[in-house]
């Protein structure tokens, strides 16, 4: 199941030159770039693992692309996203966030039904990657 989270997620995957162009746009706006990865793309999982520190004061997308490439190499089977973070106003907010890497096979989610008192049922959505043992999740 194809995960659709963040900007551009209904489009075909961005090529590297398209990613570069988006990062260049973000830098031109004065945003800081960061790279994050996870194997658990649950919609409620808003804190992915950070790949290094956010990058401030970049002038060109090449530096951020270097980190994207390194992260892909380390976690080829994870979801990786690029965030553009705006602190120029004094308050801080995410302006742009898009997925730049997905696993070859996306296991998607399953619905878990928990039967409780009476005939009531509680539903929960679970990432299928969470079923795998810790050792298999890299």
């Amino acid at each position, binding site marked *: 199941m194809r995960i659709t989270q963040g900007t551009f997620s209904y489009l075909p995957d961005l090529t590297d030159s398209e990613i570069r162009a988006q990062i260049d746009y973000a830098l031109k706006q004065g945003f800081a770039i960061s790279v994050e990865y996870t194997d658990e793309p649950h919609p409620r999982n808003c804190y992915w693992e950070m790949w*290094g*520190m956010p*990058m401030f*004061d*970049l*002038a*060109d*997308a*090449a*530096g*951020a692309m*270097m*980190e994207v490439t390194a992260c892909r190499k380390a976690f080829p089977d994870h979801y990786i996203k690029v965030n553009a973070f705006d602190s120029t106003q004094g308050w801080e907010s995410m302006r742009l966030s898009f997925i730049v890497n997905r696993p070859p096979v996306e296991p998607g989610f399953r619905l878990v039904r928990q039967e409780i008192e009476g005939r009531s049922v509680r539903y929960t959505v679970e990432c299928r990657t969470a079923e795998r043992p810790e050792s298999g999740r890299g």
Partner: protein
Amino acid sequence: MNEAAASVDLQALLREANVLDVLDALDRDLVGLQPVKQRIRETAAYLVVSKARAALGLTGAPPSLHMSFTGNPGTGKTTVALRMAEILHRLGYVRKGHLVSVTRDDLVGQYIGHTAPKTKEVLKRAMGGVLFIDEAYYLYRPENERDYGQEAIEILLQVMENSRDDLVVILAGYKDRMDTFFRSNPGMASRIAHHIDFPDYTADELYEIAALMLGKLDYRLDAGAEEALREYIAKRRVQPNFANARSIRNALDRARLRQANRLFASAAPVTRDALQTIAAADIRASRVFTAS
């Protein structure tokens, strides 16, 4: 298109890139430095020719652009590096054309595992532009084999080789110490194609620089002060720790300070003329004249 007919107008390429402006500004704004200006013109010509060759589909690896600037302090290495970044940008060899100026402290960490992220962060900031490493020989400390500088050098070499399109590295420092540095780091020496040596300024050039600096600040020297400044330069040049244009700038800063004090001490209202003029006494009060 047959091959004989294919031609490229080099002058047009040069004009198109607006590089001539930068080269002319270099000639105009910087006093002396003839060999440096010559080398930069040659480098610019080489870059234009490489571009023309690429345009006609002639094979050849993209030119290696990493450089080393050697010379005594205050001879204009940083200023020229800024202009070089501009030239490279206009010719399309770097995408953004900014200059990131760093020293050992910005690259080398203080404990294990600190150096690599620090160096990488600087490299990322410099990408798309020029990384200027001042006093680069401090990166290599042979007396301490566990020095983290070596780690910074290795990362630097890797990026200089793999990301040639992304950044240009300029190493700068004293000539003799840079030579030692290159001898002990053959990897670094082999990746740097352009060595530019910055000569010391002559006394006349230093005077011209001083006049230029004062002119920019709306100051001028009276007749006695001109004489005094020439004498000051002659004396200061042979003293230790002389840093060429930088020493001159500091001397002028101190002269301006003394001028301000002198004007303050006199009760009479000051004229516009007096505010602009530096007198002989402002310069002759320097330690340089009394120390001998």
